């Protein structure tokens, strides 16, 4: 009984300690990132790493989602005699729901694991200590640049996912029932305003913050050798995905309240 209580206490302590350390880490990154000298060169490198190099992956994910939603929506709408609603359903599903979350999860897998493993490897081989010994703030050089790159690139990648999903969704529909792309877009966006889609796209900047922050935090606090590196990469993806999904719940409600 006592051991169960001790284990539970240890878990609770570990939980609060993790969040406490994350808070301290975030404050250090914010302080370092907001003050000069700014690491523009590293930021541009990270924008390329997070953005351009992830584009093919999110484009493929978007293309697959577009086809799946197209197939499912056509079948369901036909059953209720609402086939004319197909373009609007596809546009709504992709832009409001699937595009942002799929982009967040795919990027969490690719970029989160990459950042977590890279920084963890640098930590265990004393490369981060060497950066510090060279009088360079590692929070500024390594963490702030990566987190900012994730924040800036997620909305742009989401637009890429959305575009590919709409394109393949339309294409899958056209194979069964020809419909011009112009007509599809007109019908899909009829009666819509930017307010309906922009907040959903830009909320992914918050996903970027979560993915970058957790991956940098897990990477830079790693201890142990190869096992520690593996653990950091895994934790970056698992915790990042979990927090992205939890953030989605909060953000959807927030957007519904602020942009009714």
């Amino acid at each position, binding site marked *: 009984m006592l051991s169960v209580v001790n284990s539970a206490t240890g878990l609770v302590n570990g939980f609060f300690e993790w969040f406490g350390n994350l808070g301290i880490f975030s404050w*250090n990154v914010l302080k*370092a990132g907001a*003050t000069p*000298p700014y690491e523009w060169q590293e930021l541009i490198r990270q924008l390329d790493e997070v953005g351009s190099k992830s584009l093919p992956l999110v484009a493929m994910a978007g293309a697959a989602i577009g086809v799946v939603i197209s197939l499912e929506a056509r079948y369901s709408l036909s059953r209720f005699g609402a086939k004319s609603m197909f373009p609007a359903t596809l546009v709504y599903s992709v832009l409001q729901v699937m595009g942002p979350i799929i982009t967040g999860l795919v990027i969490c897998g690719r970029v989160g694991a990459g950042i977590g493993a890279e920084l963890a*490897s*640098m930590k265990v*081989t*004393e*490369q981060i*200590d*060497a950066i*510090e*010994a*060279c*009088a*360079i*703030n590692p*929070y500024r050089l390594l963490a702030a640049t990566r987190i900012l790159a994730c924040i800036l690139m997620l909305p742009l990648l989401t637009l890429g996912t959305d575009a590919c999903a709409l394109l393949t969704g339309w294409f899958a529909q056209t194979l069964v029932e020809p419909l011009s792309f112009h007509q599809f877009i007109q019908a899909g966006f009829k009666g819509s305003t930017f307010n309906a889609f922009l907040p959903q796209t830009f909320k992914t900047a918050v996903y970027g913050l979560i993915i970058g922050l957790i991956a940098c935090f897990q990477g830079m606090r790693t201890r142990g050798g190869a096992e520690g590196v593996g653990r950091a990469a895994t934790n970056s993806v698992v915790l990042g995905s979990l927090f992205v999904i939890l953030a989605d719940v909060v953000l959807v409600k927030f957007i519904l309240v602020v942009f009714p």
Partner: protein
Amino acid sequence: MATAYDIAMTQGQPEEDSSVPVVAVENLRKTFGILKVLDGINLSVNRGETLAVLGRSGAGKSVLLRLIIGIETPDSGSVFIHGQNIAGLAIDQMGTIRKKIGFLFQHAALYDSLTVAENVAFPLDHHRRDMPRSERGDRVKQLLAEVGMEGDFRKLPSDISGGMQKRVGLARALALEPEILLLDEPTAGLDPISSGEIDELILKLQRERQMASIVVTHDLHSARTIADRLALLDQGNVVIEGKFEDLQQSNIGFVAEFLKHS
């Protein structure tokens, strides 16, 4: 060759008090969990002097260097660089101090995604942005030539041997023309010939640059070759400090045992 220190002196910057040691640690204590690593260490090094810190593995030698450069923080005690206590300095203030210190890590800690030349250029690219790119390139070539690595500047750290990595690490440590050089096991894991070459290189650099150096090692032969003074650590304390002859004449059992097995 004029060091940064010499240039600063000739440019009329406030002269540092020569009676103050360049590096001094006072009553330094550090524990990791229940493990007491350093238990009240007192050491100092003057300009142009090399101190070798000896001891068994796990005696806290590397931790001492990490405390001096501020990568670790002591539980109590003080580290003074040019008389300034570094305790409580913010990371950017500490950066100003660190620019005066060159640090060679035990396993070199080269950035594995950068080439040899990029590794050496790394501190210059961040702290000498006012220096034209071509001048920085020349400086990198000069540093690599000094450590005998001028022909390997395009290679990645994974493509060169451990001894070569240490040379590159040393070139990187010297890039900002430091006044203090901290060397963590510079000859560990090297064959006798490479060890001898590294020792000669350190001696040459010391003659030319007159830095205050602390060398952590358990290689007694290397320590005798490059150091003016030796300090032997055991169980978190300095057991003896002095010249090699002082260690030889010591009656302390641990000192005799250490010398016997070295």
